[in-house]
C-alpha cells in the first residue's frame, strides 16, 4: 500500500502576512529523507492549486528532521482581510499530509 505523509510526519501551520508557513516534521529520524523527497515546491504547488498564487519555498531543517514550507500569496490577502474561513491558515497545513510518501 502506498503510504502518504500522514503516516510519517506531523505538521504545524500558520500565517505571516499573505504567506502561509507549514512546518513538516518526520515522526522519526528514519523518515526524514522521505519527507524531504516528498515535499517539494512542485508537489506542494500541484496540491494547493490556485490557492497559492506566489512562490513556494521548501527549507530543509535537518536539525529537527523536518522542513519548512513557505507559500507566498497563499492566504487570499492577509489574516485581516482574507475571504477564507481559516483566516490564519491553521488547518491548511494538514493538507500537506495528503502528499504521497516518496522514497528518496
Amino acid at each position, binding site marked *: 500500500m502506498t503510504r502518504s505523509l500522514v503516516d510519517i510526519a506531523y505538521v504545524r501551520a500558520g500565517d*505571516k502576512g499573505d504567506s502561509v508557513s507549514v512546518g513538516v516534521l518526520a515522526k522519526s529520524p528514519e523518515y526524514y529523507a522521505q519527507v524531504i523527497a516528498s515535499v517539494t515546491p512542485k508537489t506542494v504547488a500541484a496540491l494547493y492549486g490556485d490557492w497559492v498564487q506566489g512562490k513556494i519555498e521548501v527549507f530543509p531543517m535537518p536539525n529537527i528532521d523536518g522542513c519548512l514550507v513557505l507559500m507566498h500569496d497563499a492566504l487570499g490577502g492577509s489574516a485581516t482581510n482574507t475571504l477564507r474561513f481559516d483566516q490564519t491558515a491553521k488547518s491548511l497545513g494538514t493538507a500537506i499530509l495528503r502528499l504521497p510518501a516518496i522514497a528518496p
Partner: protein
Amino acid sequence: MPNTLKNTSVRLGCGAGFWGDAFDPALELAERGNLDFLCFDFLAELTMSLLQRVRAKDPGQGYVPDMVNWFADLAAPAKASGTTLVCNGGGVSPRAGAEALAKALQAKGIAGRKIGVVAGDDVLGRLEAFRDAGVKLTHMRTGEDGFDRIKSKVVSANVYLGSDGIIEALEGGSEIVVTGRVTDSALFIGPAMHRLGWGFDQPDRIASAITVGHILECAAGCTGGMSSRFDQMPRMGEVGFPIAEIFNDGTATISKLPGSGGHVDQFTVKEHLVYEIGDPRSYFTPDGVADFTTPHIAEAGADVVRVTGMRGKARPDSLKLLIGYSDGWIGEGLLMFPWPNAHARARKAEETLRERFKRLGLSSSAISFNYIGLNMLHGPAAPMPSSDNLNEVGLRVAVKTASRDEAEKVRRACSQLWIMGPGGTSFGAPMKPRPTIALWPTLVPRDLVSHSVEHITS
C-alpha cells in the same frame, strides 16, 4: 550597561499567548513557577489597528483591558515569588494602561509598586516625517512604492521594537513592565539579557534568547496546544503554560509545572519552533537574527526538553513597521443542508445566491463560495466525494465590498433564501458585515526610531 550581578541562569514563564488566553495557567505560574519573570504576549497583527480605533473614540483607552485585571490579581503572588511581570498589553496606549493598572493596584491596597512604561513604537503621527527623511515606506513583500494610494486610509502605524526599552525599564527598577508594540520574543529576550548581563555584541547568546522566546511566546503552543498529537495530550483543559530556564552558556530547558495538563516533549517544542516563521535560517527580530536550523532539541526527562547549539547574527539596521489601513468590508453568510442530496442542494443554493446578488446589483471585488464539510479548509487540495450521500453539507459565502451597504446585500440575499432556497435549509444567526483592515509592512532605519521609558508608581 550590562547587569553587574553574575547570574548563571534565568527562569521565564509565558502567561499568555494572545489577548483572550486563559488566566488560570498564568496564576499557577505566578504562584508556583519560582520564576524570575512571567511574560505575556497580548498583541496580534490586527490588534494594534483595533486598539487604535478604540483610542480614537476615547484617548484614555487603547490598551488591552484584560491586562489591568490580570496584573492586578497577579501582582501579590508575583511579588511573593520574586517574579517580575512583563507584557505588551499597553497596546497603543501604554501610559494609560499603566495608569489604569496603578489605580487597580491601589484599589487592592497595593501601594508603591513601580511600573515601567515602554513606548515609542507608535509612529502614526510621524509617517510624513519619515518620508521627508527619505524613507519611501516601500511594501516589504510586493516592493510597491505607492504609499500615497493608502495614505488617507491609514489607521495605525507601529514599529516592532526590540528589547532595549524593556532592559532599560528593568535596570530602572521596574517590578512590572507594560509596553506597546515590541516583538513577541522581546518580552523574553529583554528579561534574559538583563538578568544574564548579555549584550547585543553576543549574537549567538541573543539567538538563544530569540529561540526560547519564540518557543514560549504562544504559551500552550509548546505544551500540547495545537499539537499534531493532541489526542495523546492529557487534561488539556488544565494545561500548564511553559517555563524556560536559560543558562549563561546559551543553553536552555523548556518545561512546565508538575501536575499540570499537556506535555512538553521534543515534538511539542519542534512543532512550535516552525510555527509562523519564514526562512528558518534567518529569523529576523530587532534584537538579532536567529538560525532555526541550528538548535538541537532533545528530551531530558519527563516534560523537560533541552535546547542547545543556537547560532545567530547581529541585529539588523532596519526595524519592521506595520501600517494598518481600512480596506473595505466583508459580507458573509452560512447555510447548512441535510441529507438526502445535501451537496446538490448546496450547489443549487450557490446558483440561487449568485442570481440574487445580480438582482440586488451587488458590487464586489471578490466573491468566494466554499462547501463546508467538503473543501472550505483545504480548498483545491481536498478531493471531492464521488457520490452525494453525505449527512450534511454547508455553503459559506464571503464577499469583499467597498462599503457597508454593499456588504449588507450579502446578508440580505442569504436571508432571502430562508424561503426561496432549497427545502430543509438551516440558517444560524445572520452574520453582520465587518470592516476589514489591510496591512502594509515596511522597514524604517533603526536610527529614526527611539523608544521611551518612564516609571509610574502605584
